[in-house]
């Protein structure tokens, strides 16, 4: 009976809260008139979400037609001159909302991976050695609070100057956004890793000394596993910060992701714009939530202490 009550509460209470939220939103939206029309309520936002999916489908149709035309043109070219140089080129139309979600996810993962690759080893080193900690701590503390919007112009200029190739694999805006995400989200991982490693249980460290393990084996077999919970806390924080930073970075760097979507809708100022921006807001929130849950599951898999309660 207890279990049922528990499950009931866990399921129904959030539903009730959500329903209240929708009601409150609907009520207040109807009362606010902006220059772009009435503030959209839940129904209007749902309509816009459906619109965005329809637009995506239409764009896919156009893409298929585009490739057909291209192939036809190429066949004609080859018929006239068999030695002609023909290739299939990617669709030139605009990225749809769903494409933009994918771009955002790719960019945030790139930035996050880069940050992890830099922060975890550095954090381990910092945790193990008191001297390393003393030397890099001031630098970390100074760069930690810098907002992504302040990094962006510098990163843009550096990328423009350094990334000069005739045939670029990545677009400059993609690199700029990813690097800005890295710069902002490496600090939680770095600090948490350092703390996790340095607070390794003294008993475990002594075991390592008794067994005369090499430095590398100590790190790999004792320090890292015991620091996993802290490292993952850091990673989760980093990912959520990275996701937030990404949206801002994309708006300014014009990387074709969700940030650019919001910015473009704002610029358009059409009657649908507010509704579409709200769809983007919900999408960003839901994706952020899913990313966090994903990291949590990963943490559960990797953690040695299965008894630990992970939220």
């Amino acid at each position: 009976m207890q279990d049922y009550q528990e499950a009931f509460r866990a399921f129904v209470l959030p539903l009730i809260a959500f329903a209240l939220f929708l009601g409150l939103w609907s009520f207040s939206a109807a009362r606010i008139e902006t220059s772009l029309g009435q503030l959209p309520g839940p129904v209007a936002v749902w309509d816009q979400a459906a619109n965005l999916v329809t637009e995506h489908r239409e764009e896919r149709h156009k893409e298929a037609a585009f490739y057909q035309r291209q192939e036809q043109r190429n066949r004609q070219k080859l018929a006239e001159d068999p030695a002609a140089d023909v290739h299939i080129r990617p669709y030139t139309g605009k990225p749809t909302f769903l494409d933009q979600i994918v771009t955002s996810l790719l960019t945030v993962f790139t930035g996050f991976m880069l940050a992890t690759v830099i922060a975890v080893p550095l954090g381990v080193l910092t945790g193990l050695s008191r001297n390393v900690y003393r030397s890099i701590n001031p630098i970390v503390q100074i760069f930690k609070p810098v907002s992504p919007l302040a990094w962006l112009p510098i990163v843009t200029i550096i990328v423009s100057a350094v990334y000069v190739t005739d045939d670029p694999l990545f677009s400059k805006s993609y690199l700029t956004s990813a690097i800005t995400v890295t710069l902002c989200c490496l600090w939680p991982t770095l600090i948490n890793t350092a703390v996790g490693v340095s607070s390794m249980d003294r008993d475990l460290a002594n075991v390592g000394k008794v067994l005369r393990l090499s430095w590398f084996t100590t790190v790999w077999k004792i320090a890292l596993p015991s620091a996993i919970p802290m490292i993952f806390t850091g990673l989760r924080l980093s990912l959520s910060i990275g996701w937030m930073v990404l949206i801002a970075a994309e708006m300014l760097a014009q990387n074709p992701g969700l940030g650019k979507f919001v910015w473009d809708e704002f610029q358009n100022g059409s009657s649908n714009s507010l509704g579409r921006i709200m769809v983007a807001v919900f999408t960003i929130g839901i994706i952020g939530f899913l990313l966090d849950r994903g990291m949590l599951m990963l943490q559960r898999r990797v953690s040695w202490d299965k008894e630990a309660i992970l939220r």
Partner: protein
Amino acid sequence: MKIKLDWTPLASEGKRLQRSLQIVTAIVVLGLLAGTQQPARAGDLEKEDLKFGFIKLTDMAPLAIAYEKRYFEDEGLYVTLEAQANWKVLLDRVIDGELDGAHMLAGQPLGATIGFGTKADIITAFSMDLNGNGITVSNDVWEQMKAHVPYKDGKPVHPIKADYLKPVVDKYKKEGKPFKMGMVFPVSTHNYELRYWLAAGGIHPGYYAPAKGDITGQINADALLSVTPPPQMPSTLEAGTIYGYCVGEPWNQQAVFKGIGVPVITDYEIWKDNPEKVFGVSQEWADKYPNTHKAVLKALIRAAMWLDSGGLENRKEAARIMSRPEYVGADYEVIANSMTGTFEYEKGDTRSVPDFNVFFRYNATYPYYSDAVWYLSQMRRWGQIADYKPDSWYMDMAKQVYRPDLYAEAAKELIAEGKAQAGDFPDFASESGFRPPQSEFIDGITYDGTKPNAYLAQFPIGLKGKDKVN
């Protein structure tokens, strides 16, 4: 955490090395083979995948139409159109090669070439449209202006001169409130038209002093002009940061539709049939890809012809295309107004302005040297060009930046292909590139493109001759 250490025996290590070497060799050989392609024949396109930038304004229409009606594809070009955040980002991206070309303000290629702002050699061989801008003021300012505007049959007499704004500006000055107005870019047509209108009414719009590092353009100003990107103009007006602005459509109609402001004049009334936007590319790009450039021009000319033909139906279709979020994005009704030749001033006061946007008629697409010289003269008038320059300097600059020769090549090919007629274009054999003297300005002063210094001498407000900003 269990870590499996996999020690592969040396033998299979060797095999793996061998395999990698084979793959690397194959890649290198293929790469070399790919490099030895046949040279391109004359007339072949050097580059087919292009990216053009634009700003969300209705006069990017030729680009949108050339894409949607497949004129680009007809020329063998695969073009991606990308909206840019603001004019500065757009110019920078053309200069550093991220964009192959862009929808530009007529003054941008000139400003970049003379070094006001980022220095770079930009040229243009295609004028995208004539007219298309308006000046809007806030509801508050309009209420105060109304007291001075002459009325006939209950409606304000147009054109509404800045003379009627002057008392309002003076009042603000007396109260110690700076009268702020917005325009889109320091070398924009909007900046020069707004200044022209203000100065004709006796309001000083401010000087630039780039030699001294002052590029705000507010020295000695009665009205303080600053930069805002076009789509943000209505919200900036609503927020009260500025009291008026000069911008292209649909941002004037947007203001009146949303009840934020009142458009008082269109640039058609300031200077009839003034050149507005151009299609700009970097000199380097044009030199490297001449055939591609010609193909682009051909597609754009066809798009411009389409826009000015077919009566209102084509314009309505264009408005519908541009209301898509990837182009201009504003509501169809807002865009359709000016595109179909009507313009709403005060709410309910809609007047017919059939030439509000001209895309091809009156040789709108031909890049006249006299247009370039006008912009250069205004740059001199307001101090962006700090020193006196002889008339010959203006001619040389104009001839370097505006390229009617490239336009003529493209047009002739279209005529040969039967897609256009010789009568649609100026007579290339006899065209000097200078329009005959124009006098349809709001202050009645005549502009002769061959004599810029004499032209500047006629203005009561503005630098002239050997004047400098002190």
